[in-house]
């Protein structure tokens, strides 16, 4: 593995192997001193061309837990605002000396372009509405921890699938690990062409609600301006929100997940988010472990 760009590049064995490694890093993170010297002397640059708090912090924590040094780039304060091109920015950071670049960009395929310009491993931390592969790893790990396997599980992904890189990576990862996925959303939030997705499709959440082991709730991108894709947020909540009432109808062992940041009261009711069967904070914790697994896979080899 030279880069970590897309779930599509992985086999089931690759994916399971990364989750196995992540299990070990979960154990490391539970130690009194949650740190190993695996990547001492290595530098990881986090290049977030699109604002992000949790993914960036999670990668930085993962790198530090492996004893790597980190440097970070944020577009607001950088020479990007002076008109420097992406390529020059990347080559500049490379010239400072970095062993890997973690890239978040709102343009589709940006991490692939960067991987053409530098030899160091590139980790995709989210590009456009295309891929967010470490999110899919942490989601898979969370489900596997809870159920022991994804094989045969019924998983619903509910919400703005059309504009979601999380959904695209999750569908691929969950199905690769043997789960059955249903994408649930109003038509305006479904991909226009769903035939390329290995998933069932439903526009009626109430019709299919009782069948799921996992309900994965996507964030409604309120900043997108609800009005342009559906008439009102209230209508969305009414038809697709995971309310207490809907939560009560789920299988008793079913879990609820959300990639964050949440809009409480819109796509998920506060009481559901705070229920023990909502594993949202486990997802956040697991994020550090899976990112350690990926960084270790890409950079750890030479130390062995």
């Amino acid at each position, binding site marked *: 593995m030279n880069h970590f760009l897309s779930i599509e590049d992985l086999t089931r064995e690759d994916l399971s192997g990364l989750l196995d490694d992540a299990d070990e890093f979960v154990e490391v993170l539970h130690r009194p001193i949650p740190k190993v010297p695996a990547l001492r002397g290595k530098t990881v640059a986090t290049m977030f061309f699109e604002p992000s708090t949790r993914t960036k912090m999670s990668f930085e924590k993962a790198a530090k837990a492996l004893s790597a040094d980190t440097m970070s780039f944020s577009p607001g304060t950088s020479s990007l605002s002076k008109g420097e091109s992406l390529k020059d920015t990347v080559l500049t950071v490379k010239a400072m000396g970095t062993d890997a670049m973690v890239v978040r960009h709102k*343009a589709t395929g940006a991490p692939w372009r960067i991987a053409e310009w530098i030899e160091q491993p590139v980790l995709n931390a989210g590009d*456009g509405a295309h891929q967010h592969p470490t999110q899919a790893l942490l989601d898979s790990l969370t489900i596997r921890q809870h159920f022991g396997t994804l094989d045969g599980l019924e998983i619903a992904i509910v919400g703005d699938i059309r504009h979601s890189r999380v959904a695209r990576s999750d569908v691929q990862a969950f199905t690769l690990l043997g789960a059955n996925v249903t994408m649930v959303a109003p038509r305006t939030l479904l991909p226009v062409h769903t035939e390329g997705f290995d998933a069932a499709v439903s526009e009626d959440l109430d019709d299919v609600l009782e069948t799921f082991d996992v309900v994965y709730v996507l964030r409604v991108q309120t900043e997108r301006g609800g009005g342009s894709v559906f008439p009102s947020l209230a209508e969305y909540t009414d038809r697709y929100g995971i309310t207490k009432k809907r939560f009560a109808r789920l299988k008793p062992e079913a879990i609820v997940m959300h990639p964050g940041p949440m809009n409480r009261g819109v796509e998920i009711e506060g009481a559901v988010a705070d229920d023990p069967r909502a594993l949202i904070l486990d997802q956040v914790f697991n994020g550090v472990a899976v990112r350690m697994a990926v960084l270790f896979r890409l950079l750890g080899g030479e130390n062995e």
Partner: protein
Amino acid sequence: MSDLILKGGSVLTADGITVADVRVSDGLIAEIGAGLDGDDVVECDGAWVGPGLVDIHTHLREPGQEWKEDIETGSRAAAVGGYTAIVAMPNTEPAIDAGHLARFVKERGAEVGLVDVYPAGAVTKGRAGAELAHLDELWAVGVRVFSDDGDVVEDAGLLRRAMDYLAARGGVISQHAVDVGLSRGGSMHEGSVSSRLGMHAIPSAADDVILARDLRLVEMTGARYHVQHLSTASGVELIAAAKEKGLPVTAEVTPHHLAFDHHAVEGTDPVYKMMPPLRSTEDRDALRRGLADGVIDVVGTDHAPHAAHEKEVPWEHAPNGVLGLEWAAAVANTFVGLDQEAFYDRLSIAPARIGQIVGHGVALAEGQVANIAVFDPSVEWTPESTVSKSENGPYFGLSLRGRIVATLFGGSITARHGEAVR
């Protein structure tokens, strides 16, 4: 001037296709016959000899964007591709919306002297879509093709006025038929690939709704109408139906829409980003059939140079457009496989007719100005470089069949075996 002999090619003459030698002397086709000899002989055995190619849709970027291309480098690329006349789109800076600007482009083209450059004029002032350009002045300096290319003429009322004006004179509207609302924010074809990539996309209907609307305006005004870069199977059907009705419409397809479909975008390499976008495999195949059976009249290159640094960015940030002049003939031959008559029709005769370009695009005859393209349809080759100022060609490394052996402009060789002569 010494005599030049095109030896033993299959010559497209006014009397049909015949294997013959062509003697070019003093800029003219002096003789078509057998056993001719001269000082300079171009071996044309197995090759086609016909009128120089004519591109109805080129972007030369001069004035205003000379870092991408200029009239000289664009003319050179045209010559290498077999062209002797090109129509330069007016989306320069400033836009070619008045007589003196069109005259500049034409005169600069003549000064370079590698092809005849015919400026197209803008339909609206500054291509802003608000009021008519100086159609009168443009007409007076010889402009016959009018286009806001790069943008659609969105206001149907304004387009109707331009059509009324041009119908009376015989000019042609060349429309970039893409609906603004349906294409807003989109940067590729809306289909299975865009859904998988999560990219904002442009449905085929974006092109079709404008084309359907415009065809109704053609019916209303009687104006000549040329649709640029047809990209959809449904668009081919609309054109076929309009021609069935006898409307004065013509259609163009680009080499890239013949060669590729939206699967080329899977790697998000911005060289494949253009407007309209590469569409489905079915669309691509319908375009190939449309060109073969003549529903689509011409190949127009939409040669659109962009500097390396402009394309070396993530997909959504890249400008639209690809190079085309040097490879259009080979691409049409490789992916459509026209016979000699149809080849010169779609790449020379029909575009000259649409653009009302005199002295180009006519079957060879003695006494004519020697504007000639020699094309060997069987040679296999792989493009590796370009003479354009930019490098955004999508055919590098792709195996093509057929190559321009020589281009003669006004009796002088401007390119030979893929090399520009000057």
